[in-house]
């Protein structure tokens, strides 16, 4: 069972729809008390960093998530802002993040006016060996849309990078914690493969 965390930000509907399409059982959960030990979780997110942290905090998600993720080691996948919220801080805001991984979130900045911000569209990723990328390779295209990216303190946690102006971390994994910058739920068959892989972790 995958529980999709509905803390008020994010396209929970898209993730639910794709999991349904590939036959993975999931539910959208709007209250931390409904999170079960033994499930997998997806932390989505579209919006701003501080607003995301505020919503997680005000509705008492953080304590419950820390228990299920940090103590009980249940798998979780953060998508887009959901990935960024797992870090320590972001240039987009002033609030501290969940701090599950030693990283900060940085804004793209290019001198070249042809490199528009946000980085938006289909880009291939360069995956490393990881269960999350089973049957995926550097020709696999994913839909990206973001102005900020995660900068890891320890690069050994990187499991994929994407090139946009430079190579940046587009996926990380630390123990049971996974984050992807792109949107598998909107990436056709590649996204279906990735979500299917996550469901089998």
């Amino acid at each position: 069972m995958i529980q999709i965390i509905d803390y008020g930000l994010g396209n929970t509907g898209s993730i639910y729809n794709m999991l349904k399409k590939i036959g993975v059982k999931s539910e959208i959960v709007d209250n931390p008390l409904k999170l079960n030990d033994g499930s997998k979780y997806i932390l989505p997110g579209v919006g701003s960093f501080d607003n995301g942290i505020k919503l997680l905090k005000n509705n008492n998600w953080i304590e419950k998530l820390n228990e299920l993720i940090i103590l009980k080691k249940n798998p979780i996948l953060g998508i887009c802002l959901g990935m960024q919220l797992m870090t320590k801080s972001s240039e987009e805001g002033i609030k501290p993040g969940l701090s599950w991984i030693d990283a900060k979130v940085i804004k793209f900045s290019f001198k070249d006016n042809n490199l528009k911000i946000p980085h938006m569209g289909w880009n291939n990723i360069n995956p490393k060996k990881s269960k999350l990328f089973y049957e995926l390779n550097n020709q696999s295209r994913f839909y990206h849309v973001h102005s900020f990216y995660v900068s890891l303190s320890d690069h050994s946690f990187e499991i994929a990078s994407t090139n946009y102006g430079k190579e940046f971390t587009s996926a990380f994994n630390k123990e049971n914690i996974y984050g992807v910058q792109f949107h598998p739920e909107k990436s056709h068959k590649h996204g279906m493969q990735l979500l299917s892989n996550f469901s089998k972790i």
Partner: protein
Amino acid sequence: MLRPRVIPVLLLKNTGLVKSVKFKNHRYVGDPINAIKIFNDKEVDELIFLDIDASKNNTPPNFELISQIASECFMPVCYGGGITKLDQIEKILKLGIEKIAINTQNLKDSNFIKKASNLFGSSTIVVSIDINKNFLGNYSIYSHSLKKNYKNIFDFIKKIEDDGAGEILINSIYNDGIMKGYDFSLVKKISMNSKIPVIACGGASSIQDFRDVIKSNASAAAAGSFFVFHGPHKAVLISYPNEEELNYICS
């Protein structure tokens, strides 16, 4: 490498899909859900749905239809039409739509884009503008719902960028549905003056047009007729460039 996007723009009228010529003469071209299924198979980059009656008739978005659309789409989707309130955006995003196109409401309330992008993030908010050209060749932004012209396009674009819009969708009214090529010089001028991605729409007739509009610095090539009509008699047939053609467009 980031590949420029090729995007079908699908017009909703009641619950069906239509296609216009110069924003008039709407012809029924099919059922949206059926079209989405075909575009899923073709692994389309993105889809834009615009409800062309909602703002004109002052009706709210058709949430039930949007929900059906969202549940079938495994690619990014933008919805526009009839949005006047922030909570409508929230509702649509929850249904599984990633982007919201704002046109009329931006002209009615000059703070709307700022409020929306602050709440939902820049990349969610697409500002859609319809561009007219008069007999002297001067451009203006035209609102069909408000029946008004707005002269200074570049001041307008600067403002929506500053307000946090994530993308600009430009529709050339005078090119709509006639399939004679984009207004390449206008696309170039707008793209060069813009820090955010520009989606060009209006006039596409061929794979070459897509390539040329990307060469004119558009971040995405959008079209209507091209994806729904086939042949000189405009038979309704949904199509999308294949991998080889997409590579050519981006080469």
